[in-house]
């Protein structure tokens, strides 16, 4: 694993912490989906979030990169807010351009891949580096080819997404997120839309990223993957973190009856 960076954040939170969520609340209308979620993800570590459907896992993940605005709580990524600027004791909402700059540092991989269907694989990979980070095309292309090799798809660079299998599309989506050199990668059930025989190839890529020390927050139903790769397993239910800790210990010996019940169902 690479050594975690240790510079000092403005808010005194050790910046070896990549994601720091405290008391996150989020409602849709009258429905409170997140009821005070706490989570700390150290730099270079992997956190896996499990829990029944509708427990607020996706919503929480989307709060990390400010795809959803939170109603209360503190969400810091690499020691700074994503959607706000702190002045005195007031949080001012940032304009979209500033939020985009912050978001570019947070990669996200979706259940439905969300590749750009009108672009080739290579174009998908260089679009944001060239247009957002203003990297020269040649440099972005070289990096993209490198990334495609890492996910084992170098020969697909000129294919369009619809010509690829689901597993290949998801590996391209991971490469596309990596092309922005994100500080942290968020995965929302990356293998749930895949045929069973394609799940393995995507998990393999994710395991290799974990070994390289990339900080990841992974919402998943793959308990085996979580046990093997996660530094921290988080069980969410009903909009709160019910239990979290070392994955092996938690799976072998869950403390809460809700965790025990859920694990019994999925294992």
């Amino acid at each position: 694993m690479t050594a975690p960076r240790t510079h000092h954040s403005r808010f005194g939170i050790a910046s070896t912490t990549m994601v720091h969520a405290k008391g996150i609340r989020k409602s849709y209308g009258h429905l409170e989906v997140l009821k005070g979620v706490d989570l700390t993800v150290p730099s270079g570590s992997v956190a896996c979030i499990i829990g029944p459907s509708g427990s607020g896992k996706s919503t929480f993940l989307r709060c990390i990169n400010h795809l959803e605005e939170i109603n209360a709580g503190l969400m810091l990524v690499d020691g700074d807010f994503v959607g706000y600027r702190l002045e005195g004791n007031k949080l001012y909402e940032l304009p979209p351009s500033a939020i985009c700059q912050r978001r570019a540092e947070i990669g996200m991989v979706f259940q439905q891949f969300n590749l750009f269907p009108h672009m080739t694989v290579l174009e998908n990979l260089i679009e944001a580096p060239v247009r957002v980070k203003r990297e020269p095309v040649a440099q972005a292309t070289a990096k993209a080819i490198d990334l495609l090799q890492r996910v084992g798809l170098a020969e697909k660079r000129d294919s369009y997404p619809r010509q690829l299998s689901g597993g290949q599309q998801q590996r391209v989506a991971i490469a596309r997120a990596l092309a922005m050199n994100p500080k942290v990668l968020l995965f929302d059930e990356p293998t749930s839309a895949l045929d069973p025989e394609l799940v393995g190839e995507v998990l393999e890529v994710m395991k290799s990223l974990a070994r390289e020390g990339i900080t990841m927050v992974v919402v998943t139903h793959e308990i085996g993957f979580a046990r093997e790769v996660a530094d921290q397993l988080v069980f969410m239910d009903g909009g709160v973190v019910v239990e979290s800790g070392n994955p092996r210990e938690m799976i072998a010996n869950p403390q809460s009856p809700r965790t025990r019940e859920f694990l019994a169902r999925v294992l």
Partner: protein
Amino acid sequence: MTGNQSIRGSVDKIDPDQLTIVPLRHPWRWVAVALVLVSVAAMIRSAISNPEFQWPIVAQYLFNPLILDGLWKTLLITVVVMILATLGGTFAALMMLSPSKLLSVPAAVFVWFFRGTPALVQLIIWYNLSIVVKDFTLWLPGIGTLYSVSTNDIMTPLVSAIVALSLHESGYMAEIVRSGLRSVNKGQYEASACLGMKPSLALRRIVLPQAMRIIIPPTGNETINLLKTTSLVSIIAVGDLLYSAQSIYARTFETIPLLLVVSFWYLAVVSIMSVGQFYLERHFSRDEHRNNIGLTKAILGNLAKIGRKEALA
């Protein structure tokens, strides 16, 4: 059942190479074809032999300077109006899709009004604008009148025509663009946002190119429709194709031949537009074709093919 069983029994004895397939015959289709051929022949014959069509006069006026000038005006109005309507329509569509009611409601009212009243009526209203608005004045409090111009000086027939048709067409384009934008999956917006793309960049690079697939076919129809709708401007004395022809046959009474000239040019332009639409559609759905080639490549390829044939001949 017994028949099937007997076939199954004898299937081993059949040599597949000896079998021929007899296609289903469609006798009524041939009757219909014959009827169509007979009526087409009759029409062509009457068109050629009927002296009222006056084909020599058609040929004589086909490239008449006045007609070509009218054709140019017609094309100019079509192109300018289509550009303005596309911009206006896209703007209105973005407003309609805005979560803010303050933006979406005015846009919806705009579309409702300009789509709901006949183009001819709007044309005449704009042409007669000077009746309601005598002049345009830029007036600032404390400074007074900076600039003033009479409505009749600005609202020439051509300008009235362009303004009226642009607003009318904007209403249609807004609906077309809106349905195109809505056809793009929400995940595409989110993926762009997660890559740090600003909404304007995501719209330009990710959403619009995908929406184009839905937008182009009806826009092609609209353009062809608009080309023909521009003939309405002859009512307010804009010298378009129809107006030019009318001004000639008002003198010479060669009504039918001149209307044939007009029809010829409209058909010619529509045909060219259809070819353009074909290539545009192919360009924006290039990921659906395995041997994908872009618009420029396709046109260059066609030119090269023509060149090759000529070289062989």
